[in-house]
């Protein structure tokens, strides 16, 4: 038999040496398979007469992209803008719909989640019904429902469904809203808003210090609200209100082909974007509602009772005892829902909203045919965003972690 050598035997039985051997095996195996994959890819690409490289990014793109925030910001023009512009448009459109979705989903989700804990049976019924139906039906189906069944059933191009007389209207080409026209001085209004927020923070610090010293509480909410509202408005009007609104313009007279909403007046949200926004926010809101409910239930009843026993009023108990503890439980899963929402915005490819997947990995990929590079670039965007969120989460968790003795 072999292996009589004692030193070899004990060496092989040593967990540490074994670990190193095993890991070396894994690493070698991984390197070999990566090499094999890279080899295959390169030879396949060579067979198809393709090369690797990012030079396509400076070529001009020759296809239309429907008017969205991205095309407006980068002033997209067929035959003039490059594939880099297309990439950026995709990113901008993904983020704007994700941002709007996060805002709406948070509001709806918190409302529904709190309603689910209400004393009121009707509220509880409604929120359970909503959560169960929305959570158990695929997002893609909900997207199709909003896009094909609801928004496609809107009035035709030459008609409209008036939402606010003369200001907002809806038809099959989208939602028409007033567009802000910014003139020179507007930057001051904006700066004063930022200044107001900074001042509010300073006042809050003062209020906290005063409370610690004297025990007197300033009505911080009202003070902050009035600073943030009044200061920018004051600056804005003193400056001669340098902001104008361009109202959407609807014509139902004149030649038939010219009827309908006129381009150049107001702003339009394309139906694809509306559908993505609706579907994403309603879907994610159902998950957020469950998170909020669980978070509030996680705060033990003893905390509320202890606060009452100290004579703290119910409203203040909610604000200073329950919500801070609930938020500690709520925020980590909430962040991952935000991340999910951002990733789910890629479903918009199914209804051709020009976000990253649809416009870059779809249309542009078909035109250029650089699969490896373009899919890599697309994945990098999502990965970066995910890792940034994860970093934020770690920071947050370490900040709010219960400090135990």
């Amino acid at each position: 038999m072999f292996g009589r050598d004692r030193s070899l035997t004990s060496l092989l039985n040593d967990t540490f040496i074994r670990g190193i051997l095993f890991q070396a095996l894994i690493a070698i195996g991984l390197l070999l398979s990566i090499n094999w994959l890279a080899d295959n890819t390169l030879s396949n690409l060579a067979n198809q007469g393709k090369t690797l490289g990012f030079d396509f990014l400076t070529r001009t793109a020759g296809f239309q992209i429907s008017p969205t925030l991205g095309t407006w910001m980068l002033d997209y023009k067929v035959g003039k803008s490059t594939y880099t512009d297309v990439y950026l448009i995709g990113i901008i459109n993904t983020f704007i719909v994700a941002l709007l979705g996060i805002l709406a989903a948070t509001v709806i989700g918190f409302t529904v989640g709190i309603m689910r804990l209400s004393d009121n049976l009707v509220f509880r019924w409604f929120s359970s019904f909503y959560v169960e139906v929305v959570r158990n039906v695929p997002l893609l189906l909900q997207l199709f429902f909003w896009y094909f069944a609801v928004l496609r059933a809107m009035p035709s191009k030459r008609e409209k469904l008036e939402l606010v007389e003369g200001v907002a209207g809806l038809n099959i080409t989208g939602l028409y809203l007033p567009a802000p026209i910014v003139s020179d001085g507007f930057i001051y209004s904006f700066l004063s808003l930022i200044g107001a927020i900074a001042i509010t923070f300073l006042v809050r610090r003062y209020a906290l210090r005063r409370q610690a010293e004297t025990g007197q509480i300033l009505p911080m909410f009202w003070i902050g609200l009035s600073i943030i509202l009044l200061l920018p408005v004051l600056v804005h009007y003193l400056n001669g209100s340098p902001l104008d609104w361009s109202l959407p313009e609807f014509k139902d007279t004149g030649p038939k082909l010219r009827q309908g909403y006129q381009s150049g007046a107001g702003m339009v949200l394309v139906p694809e974007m509306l559908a993505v926004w609706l579907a994403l926010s309603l879907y994610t809101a159902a998950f957020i509602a469950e998170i909020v409910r669980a978070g509030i239930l996680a705060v033990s009843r003893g905390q509320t009772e202890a606060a009452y026993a100290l004579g703290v009023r119910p409203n203040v108990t909610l604000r200073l005892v329950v919500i801070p503890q609930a938020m500690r439980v709520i925020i980590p899963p909430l962040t991952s829902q935000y991340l999910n929402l951002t990733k789910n915005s890629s479903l918009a490819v199914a209804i051709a909203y020009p976000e990253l997947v649809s416009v870059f990995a779809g249309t542009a990929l078909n035109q250029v045919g650089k699969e490896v590079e373009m899919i890599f670039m697309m994945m990098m965007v999502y990965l970066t965003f995910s890792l940034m969120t994860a970093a934020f989460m770690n920071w947050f968790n370490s900040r709010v972690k219960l400090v135990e003795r």
Partner: protein
Amino acid sequence: MTRKVIKAAPKKTTMKKAIPSDIDTQAGYVRIEDAPLLPPPPSEVGVTGWLYKNIFASMSDFGSVSAALKSVFVAASTLFILYFLVTQISGLLDFAIFSAVWSDPEGLKRQACWTVEQGGALPNGWHAACWPFIEAKAKFIFYGAYPNDDLWRVNLTYALGGFMLAWVMIERLPYRKIVGILLLTVYPVMATVLLTGGAFSISTGTIGGATILGLALITIGRLGKAGYVSGAFGDLALVAGVCGWLVILFAAVLAVFAIDFDLEAIDTRDWGGLLITLVVAITGIVASLPLGILLALGRRSEMPVARFLCTVFIEFWRGVPLITVLFMASVMLPLFMPEGVNFDMLLRALIGVTLFSAAYMAEVVRGGLQAIDKGQYEGADAVGLSYWQSMRLIILPQALTHVIPGIVNTFIGLFKDTALVSIVGIFDLLGAAQSTLADAAWSTPVQGLTGYLVVAVIFFVFCFGMSRYSMFMERKLNRSHKS
């Protein structure tokens, strides 16, 4: 100083006996009988009490201005929500049942669901489900383009799977463990043969080679067990023995795939509808759990290289949307493979979906592993269990029980996510239903809503069923812990 005393109720002579003698029963302020029991206040019992507690309590505080405002607000929104719920639910019932067109005896197709305005016979303004459309498309929505003559194969697969699953889930039946193992080993092979037709071109050389290799490895394992292989190589020999059995199993599966059962071969491109949804979901569920457990163990391992690789793998898949994974699987997987190897489109999607959900599963399992008390790990070490023994016998059973809700949530997410394969051109339930909407012969304004309603109900039944079963399991397992 004496106080004015409240006059007690008139005395009753019968009660006198119960009163201790040292109390002056003549004093007017001594109460010598129980006060009569009052009925509970109406706000606590009966229909009114229930209504008060569940509805009106939240809107009956008018103590201060802000409380009154809140009460009015709650009352108004209650009314509004009630109105909304009633109109929506009755509207849905009306759409799906009461006003719906149920049959098309004359074979009018789309005209059966047209209003007078549109050229049909239904009253103007009619807006309800068109069930004959679903009836006509049912085969496509459920089976895709699977040949009509071979549908029994799909149904047989469903029936077998459903039967075995029910057997495993009903607790009173005997041999549940054996049926469960069969469900996870024999059943997938049978299902593959039944659905595809089997008779894959696998050379006898491959099967023979695998068999010989397996037998050789088993022999080494036997030798090691008998003590002929000494020292450190003895462990390796045992590992070789286990691997030998796996290789033999693999060879057996290959052999079954190679047998010609005289079933017509059906390309996966002809599969569709619910069949695809179930195949993708079930394969993903079955394959992602073991993979996820391995990844979770790797991420918690003490070996830095293994931990790093597992972490990178998990974070990569969790960081990208499923769509991009499917895009990658359909566009880039063929590039990765050597020339001549061509993956089936469905197989590519399956690989993508499995890897994707394995990463999520790994995080759920890791949560469970972290929730286990450190003493359990140390206890397992103390009684001398090896790593795999302690995982298999001590840690994983507890960890997995802890995270059943999370696992089932991942399953539900996976089931819903199967709908995305329709974006890369595979006709799953949603994709098949969506493509029937393009049929002009059935083109009506209600076509889309009818189709979506059917798909939504099917998905809802599966997902809701899974979540309820997980809640049931959770309660059951919890009880056994507490007793």
